[in-house]
């Protein structure tokens, strides 16, 4: 197996048995395998390095989140059947009270005047 093919396999991360055997006997490919492992290790470690966000990102996120939360609450109210039933009951009660008041006034004309 030639070094070029072995190194191609090394960088796929899936060297076969032949490549592994070659690496054992070839110092150049062994060094390349080592570079690959080092690079993989450092790449994996990057996950723990946090970037510094723009200064205004935090406040922008909180503002957006606040608006979205209010929108959620509004929609929750609008789509909640209990709220609608409550509103309907309140409207019915108000209508009933209006009718009663109107009847009383009609029964006592001096109140209308």
């Amino acid at each position, binding site marked *: 197996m030639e*070094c*070029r093919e072995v*190194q*191609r396999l090394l*960088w*796929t*991360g*899936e060297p076969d048995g032949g490549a592994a055997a070659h690496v054992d006997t070839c*110092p*150049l490919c*062994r*060094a*390349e395998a*080592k*570079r*690959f492992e*080092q*690079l*993989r*290790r*450092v*790449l*994996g*470690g*990057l*996950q723990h*390095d*946090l*970037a*510094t*966000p*723009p200064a205004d*990102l*935090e406040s*922008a*996120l*909180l503002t*957006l*989140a*606040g608006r*979205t*939360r209010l*929108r*959620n*609450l509004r929609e*929750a109210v609008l789509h909640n059947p209990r709220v609608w039933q409550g509103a309907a009951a309140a409207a019915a009660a108000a209508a009933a009270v209006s009718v009663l008041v109107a009847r009383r006034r009609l029964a006592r004309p001096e109140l209308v005047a």
Partner: protein
Amino acid sequence: VSVTSEIRLDVPPGLVERARDGDRAALEDLILRSYRPAYTLALRLMGNPDDAAEATQEAFVRMVRALPKFREPGAYPTWIFKIVNNVCLTEMRRRSRREVPMELEVVRDPDPVDVEELATSRAFRVELDRAIAALPDTYRTVVVLRDVYGLSGEEAAAELGISPGALKVRLHRARRKLRDALVAAFPEWGTGADGEKETA
């Protein structure tokens, strides 16, 4: 297991539930605890700060919108990173990338004294970050998902909507480009372990 489940966010028990149930302070706390790692993922995927900030905002709006129906508080880290990932990949399909240098804060060890330590040095990681940011989108997303965040080949291929075979090809090319960039920046790293010069 997805990479995102390996990401540790400092989220105290009950915080997600309180945020979900409408507690404003809990929601703000949840965002403050998670936005920086989320922004970092966006920056690594998109390669420039402006796009990353925009994607992070979009991701958190989607998160807050969906939060009332979120029923797995323990999976919050996986969830928010998945949202960020989706937003970034969708945006990248829509727009061309602007070349702006990445700004990463790296807080670790001092400068190296030999080649063995070089690969763990701050300078090496900074150069690697630059090299990742300079990759074409198709290579950068593959190497970030697969090698930085540890997704399996199948998971990364599924996220990117490509075949496992295409993923392997892109990954191989991306790694080689990173290798070449690092060798250019640190010629001593391209030297064979026994002192011989590399021949690739």
